[in-house]
């Protein structure tokens, strides 16, 4: 069986180097193809300085650049500034217009997947479906922790997609929802900020046991008299859930792209936090054909003590992807 899961990279992963001017988008694209991750996810509001005004010439330059490296676009990360004006939200019509603007640009760029921010209302998206179909762009609501694939808010979007019978509305999971273990990078930073090792260990242990986060926060804040760093560490548990990877098969028809969130890889190319070893077999089993798009978010946790090396982190994640995909495929063939 040939590999059906594709590998790619979101430009989000290189925010540290790009923010500091140490890499430009072409550097990222070149690096990505060098590790076999030819699918490029962009955030136009990050990577296109003249956004939302993008000329055909600019688009041509992007396409030429991608071609030079043998890369291609996979996904467009949209934003929606409902709070553009102080004190009032955009009207429903304005929200629809903003999304249509993004769908148009997506289409002009030749991108067929658009990441929709999770807070966008399902009824607003419903109004955008005809235009998304016309532009042939799949609108995927990002399922981001602390939501999960089955959260009632997400099910509302799935219901709209089912009711309309459209293939242009669905979801776009961010793998941060499968945090099986507490990231060592989080713990280390809170310890540098003053969390006592025994309290940090308590929090990690509570997460390991999957105890309701509010209980742990209460224990740390009230019963243990936690200091600022300890309470802040406990509060990260609100955003550190471990959703059930077995649900992937049920929702695979609704997503075509995955944001492969991670916070740090070990030297031997293992993700200590996110359960890719459980996620990837599920994707392989159901024959999913989209892109695993690296979303490195470790920079903010280590930049106070070490030089961020997003390339090395992303490289390691892709070694892991190759290993896990190959393993899952060979196990599938045996069975």
């Amino acid at each position, binding site marked *: 069986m040939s590999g059906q899961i594709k590998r790619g990279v979101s430009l*989000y992963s290189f925010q540290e180097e*790009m923010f500091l001017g140490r890499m430009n988008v072409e550097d990222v694209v070149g690096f990505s193809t060098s590790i076999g991750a030819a699918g490029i996810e962009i955030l136009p509001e990050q990577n296109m300085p003249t956004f939302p005004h993008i000329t055909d010439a600019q688009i041509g330059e992007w396409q030429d650049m991608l071609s030079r490296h043998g890369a291609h676009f996979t996904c467009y990360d949209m934003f929606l500034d409902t709070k*553009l004006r*102080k004190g009032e939200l955009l009207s429903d019509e304005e929200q629809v217009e903003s999304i249509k603007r993004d769908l148009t640009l997506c289409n002009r760029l030749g991108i067929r997947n658009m990441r929709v*921010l999770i807070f966008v209302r399902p009824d607003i998206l419903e109004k955008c479906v005809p235009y998304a179909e016309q532009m042939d762009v799949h609108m995927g609501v990002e399922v981001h922790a602390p939501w999960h694939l089955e959260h009632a808010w997400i099910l509302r979007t799935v219901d709209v997609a089912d009711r309309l019978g459209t293939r242009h509305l669905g979801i776009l999971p961010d793998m941060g929802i499968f945090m099986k273990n507490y990231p060592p990078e989080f713990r280390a930073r809170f310890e540098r900020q003053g969390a006592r090792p025994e309290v940090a260990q308590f929090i990690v242990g509570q997460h390991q046991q999957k105890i309701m986060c509010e209980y742990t926060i209460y224990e740390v804040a009230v019963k243990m008299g936690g200091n600022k760093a300890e309470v802040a560490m406990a509060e990260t548990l609100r955003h550190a859930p471990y959703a059930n990877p077995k649900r992937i098969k049920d929702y695979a028809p609704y997503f075509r792209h995955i944001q492969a969130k991670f916070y740090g890889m070990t030297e031997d190319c293992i993700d200590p936090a996110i359960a890719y070893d459980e996620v990837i077999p599920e994707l392989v089993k159901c024959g999913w054909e989209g892109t695993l798009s690296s979303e490195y978010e470790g920079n*903010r946790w280590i930049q106070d003590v070490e030089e961020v090396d997003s390339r090395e982190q992303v490289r390691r994640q892709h070694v892991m992807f190759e290993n896990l995909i190959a393993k899952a495929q060979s196990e599938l063939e045996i069975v």
Partner: protein
Amino acid sequence: MFDRYLIDADSLRNTGPADAPTGFAFDAKLGYYRGLGLSMVEKLDIAIDGEPLPREAVRFDEGLGPLTLDEMETAYDRRWPFGTAATILVDRPGGFPAGEHELSLLQQLRVSYLPFPAVNTDKKSVSLAA
């Protein structure tokens, strides 16, 4: 996510006549992983050694001409792009005080998908180039 990188310490300079400065300026980046429309920059609080300077004393220029913070609130067509320094101008008779001082910058952003304002802060010990 980028707090420590906001202020460009080397960019500090006085404004106005060299012998009677009327203020100072420095370059700063937006502490966010994308660019943002200027109308959603709610605050740019500047302080020297912890002493806040008045909001009215601050202006912002991403390259299209300075705006007061109140003017920014309705600058719907202008953006502060990702990773790009803008100039922050501060009225202060005499300019930046001589010697080394702590300059701090707080950015408060209205990020639509967050229920609460996003706040970024940086402070750096800076001095005017001799």
